[in-house]
Each structure stands twice: as C-alpha cells, then as structure tokens.
C-alpha cells in the first residue's frame, strides 16, 4: 500500500510537470517566442511519447523487446486517416475525430493481438526480429495499397490506381506509395498532451492492477508464474495488445497533424521503431515518465543543434553512445559510485544546497 501511494505521488507529479510544460509552451507559442520548427514539433513529440509509453509497457513490463511498434503506429495512422478522409464531408469535425481516434486505436490493438498470437511463442532476440519483420510487412503492404470510393462502394487494389476502376465521380482515398493526402489537420498540441496524460494514467493503473501484477510476475519468472496458476499466454496477449493500442493512438495523432501521410522507412519503418526504443531505454526501462522526458529531450535536441547544420546528427549519435556508456557501463558506474557521482547523490546534494539557502 505504501509503495502504491509513493508511486501514485510520482504519477501526480509527472502529470503536473506535463501541465506546466504545456502552459509554458502554449504561452511561448501564442506570444511568438517559439521558432516555427519547434512549434511544428509539438504534436509529433506527443505522438512519439505515446508510442514510447506503449513500447515501454512491452519492454519494461512484459519483458519482451519489440522492434515493430512503428508498425502499430502505422496501422493507427492509416486506418484513422482513411476514416477521417472518407467521412470528411459527412460527419462533423469533433465526433469524426473522436471516432477516428477510436478506430485507429482499435485497429492497432487488433493488429497487435493478431501478431502477438504467433510472435509470443518466441522469445528474446527471435521475438525482436519477428516484430521487426511484421513492422516492415505492414509498411510494405500499405505502400502498394490503393483504395477508392464511388457510388458503387469501396474499391481496393494492390496493383495500381487504374485497376481500381473508379467511376468519374469517385474519390481516391489511399494512393499507394503516395499514401493518404488531405487528412483534416485536427491534432492540436492540447489534444496531444491530453492523450499523453490519459495514456500515462492508463498504463500506470494497468501495471498496478491484478492483471499488471500477473504480467510482471511472468516477466520476473515465467516458470514460477505458471506454478501459481497464471495463464501465461492470456496475460502476455493482453499486455502486448494494450501496448500496440497505445502506439496506435500515437499514430492517429501523427496522421492528423500532416497533410500527406506516407509510409516510408523513416516514419513507420524499423528506423522509427528503433528511434522510439532509444527513447525508452534512455528514459529508463519500465519508467513511463522517463520515456516522456527522453522523447521530449531527444526530439528537441537535433532541432536545438540546428545551428551546427550537418554536424548535429553526428553530435546526436555521439551523445547517444556517451549516455549509454555513462549510464550502463559497469566500470563507469563503479567510478561514479566511488566518487559520489550517481544520480541519487547528485540529487541529494542539490536538495541540500537548496535547504541551506
């Protein structure tokens, strides 16, 4: 009970920090103190944060490495954008966006569930490579998908636009590698922040519930979990599906922030999955607030380094390697412990100086 209270406090503090950050950013934006690049990043940061929270649930609590979460983001993005575009003129803005959000989340969850059934039979690096494979398949298939609508209903083809055989009055919804263009841009920073807070609360409640305890037990010791009567597959499936669903929410947000949605290697391929994984690991495995901090800092960092032009990504990569060594290398950790340089002692010192003041 005490533990729960302590972690609940942490959650509340995280939410307060997010709210304060939101207000600061919103004020800066409205007073014109935010560069256009920065303000353009506000919604994507929220989208990446959501995917990171979802992935952290998978890596930190289910204990399985997924390299395919960009695939679930992709499913969420395309299904919701498809819906929003198809009903752009028939349903009013607000209910349509809410429906799109539900649809995107549902389909990401569905794909997560279907993929998890075979994938969770594997473990370790084999599981990782198969999730990567699924992510790539999703991206590839979307790139050859053509969907149009006319008075006869939906037309689907995997060859080209011509094979759809659309009537002259029909509209093309998904145009192969060109993806979906003209999705209503309804995602705002406020919606993004609200969704992030919602996801944070959902995952927090989940890992501190009966089901969450079972998932953690399976992660800690699968054989012991079986001998106390836990149905392993069921709980793994639940955790993976929720994880995919949250990534899907990130996809919905992402899709409704851009005019032209395409599935390239960089936005929905393994590169994106890996980028999110970097956020999760740097933020702390199993630490949702940490994922948020890492996402915000690492997405903003290259933009802040923009003055250094071509060197910025090089610096980014060096910072990444240095951070990993600093936080994980046993010898460096020992050195830090010997010289009072762990994050705990440093935080303690800061607190002390504050008290003195």
């Amino acid at each position, binding site marked *: *009970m005490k533990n729960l209270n302590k972690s609940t406090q942490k959650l509340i503090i995280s939410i307060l920090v997010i709210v304060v950050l939101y207000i600061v950013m919103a004020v800066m934006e409205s007073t014109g103190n935010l560069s256009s690049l920065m303000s353009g990043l506000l919604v994507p940061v929220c989208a990446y944060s959501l995917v990171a929270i979802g992935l952290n649930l998978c890596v930190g609590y289910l204990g399985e490495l997924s390299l395919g979460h960009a695939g679930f983001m992709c499913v969420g993005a395309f299904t919701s954008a498809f819906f929003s575009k198809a009903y752009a003129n028939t349903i009013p803005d607000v209910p349509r966006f809410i429906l799109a959000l539900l649809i995107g989340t549902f389909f990401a969850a569905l794909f997560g569930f279907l993929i998890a059934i075979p994938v969770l039979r594997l473990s370790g690096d084999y599981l990782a490579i198969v999730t990567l494979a699924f992510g790539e398949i999703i991206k590839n298939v979307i790139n050859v998908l053509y969907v149009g609508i006319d008075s006869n209903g939906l037309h689907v083809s995997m060859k080209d636009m011509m094979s759809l055989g659309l009537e002259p009055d029909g509209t093309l919804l998904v145009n192969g590698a060109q993806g979906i263009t003209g999705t209503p841009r309804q995602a705002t920073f406020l919606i993004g922040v609200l969704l992030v807070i919602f996801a944070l609360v959902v995952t927090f409640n*989940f890992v501190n519930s*009966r089901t969450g*305890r079972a998932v*953690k037990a399976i992660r800690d010791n699968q*054989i012991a*979990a079986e*001998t*106390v009567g*836990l149905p392993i597959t069921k709980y793994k499936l639940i955790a993976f599906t929720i994880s995919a669903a949250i990534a899907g929410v990130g996809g919905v947000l992402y899709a409704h922030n851009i005019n032209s949605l395409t599935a390239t290697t960089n936005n929905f391929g393994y590169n994106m999955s890996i980028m999110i994984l970097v956020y999760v690991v740097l933020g702390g495995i199993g630490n949702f607030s940490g994922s948020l901090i890492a996402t915000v800092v690492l997405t903003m960092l290259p933009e802040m380094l923009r003055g250094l032009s071509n060197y910025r990504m090089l610096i980014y990569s060096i910072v990444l390697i240095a951070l990993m060594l600093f936080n994980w290398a046993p010898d460096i950790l020992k050195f830090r412990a010997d010289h009072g340089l762990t994050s705990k002692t440093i935080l303690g010192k800061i607190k002390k100086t504050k008290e003195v003041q």
Partner: protein
Amino acid sequence: MALLEVTNLGISFGGLRAVDEFNLQIEKGELYGLIGPNGAGKTTVFNMLTGIYKPTDGKIFLDGNDITGKKTADINKSGVARTFQNIRLFGDQSVLDNVKIGLHNSFEYSTFSGIFRLPKFFATEKEMDKKALEILSVFGLDKEADILASNLPYGKQRELEIARALATEPQLLLLDEPAAGMNPNETRDLMNTIALIRKEFGVTILLIEHDMKLVSGICEKLTVLNFGRVLSQGETSAVLNDPEVIKAYLGE
C-alpha cells in the same frame, strides 16, 4: 482414496531414463518425504507432478482426477502448489505482491476495472491485501510486506515462496529442499513452520530433503529414489533402517 496416486511414472530425455516405474500414494493430511542421492531424479518427479515436464509413461491422479500431462497452471488450479530448489520469487515485486500473485485466481476483477479504477478494483484489492497479510503473518513476514522480495534474507525468501504457494489454496504442497542452505537454527525454525502450516492450512505435504534430521524429525513416510528408481518406500523408521538405503547413502 489417496490424495495423490502416482502409477508407473517414467520419463526419458533422449536416451537417458531419468525416472522409471515410480509409484507413490499419499493420503490426505500426510507429511511425506522424498529422499535420495544427488541426481536420483527427485526434482524430475516434482517437475512431472507439476506439469513442467510431460511424463513419457504412467499416470498421476489427484483426488481421483487424472492430471497427467496437464498444463502447469491447470495443475495448480486443481490443487498442487510447489516451491523450488533454487528459489524463484518475483524479485522485482514487493513481498505483499508476491503473495497477492498467489491469490490471483481466488479473487477476480476485470482488466478494464483495473485500468479505470472502478469500485470493484478498490474493494477487491482491499480484500486481497487483508488475505495476503493474514498468510504473511503466519510466517511473521507481515512486517516486511512492502520490501522488495529480492531484498529479503535467504531464509525468509524460502518462507515467502512457501507463503506464495499456500496462497493458491493447494491440497498438496510440494517443497523442494526447503532447508537447503540453512543453518541448524534456521532448519529447526523451518521444521516448526512446516508443522504449523500443516495445522493452519490443512494441507498435505510432499518434500524433497537432504537433511536427514529434518526428514526423520517430521516425515511420517518416506520414498527413497536412487538412479531414477524407487529403492525403498514406507514408514520413516523402517525405511531409514533398510540396509539398501544405508548402502546407497553411505556406500559399501
């Protein structure tokens, strides 16, 4: 009718016959010991009884129901719980949560009410806390409820593992070398604890043990395994005086 009835149980790994023609009958309420030299196949028997290994031959009946080759989780649900020789706790979770995971199947609320914190969540969690603390207090572990399981001292980890197993409300409790690594004092405490849980929880116990003092002190019946086969079986005093058993333990 016996609570546990095992007939002609056998298992092969490749060409190796690890256990062969193993028979066992345990009556309700008994405290039964399974002993034998290292590598005799004792833990393998436990692994078959709990469904971790699928036996190649033979049958296992619990309370008259065939549980041979069933899934581990289902065997637990039908009433068998166990501990492990190399302790297997959920180390990253609190002592309390370890027991609450044992209570998982006795209390229920949906994942949905967990995520959205519906009233059912609070009510059930409260009951689970109460029940878990009750079980922990039998072992005097209730004061350590909030500590991470991996931070407990060794002896208490063993006790927590027993507490977690008992939380699943088993009819039959399998203890795999509960006294391993304990000093004589701790072993004596453990003997008292085992006697106590037998009384408090009304559970039948089958234990694997090397410590002869513990075995002769508390077990009513014994089975001795050697090279995967039953060497001797029966009342404790008779088995311990069996010349075959003495030979297997002390050599010629």
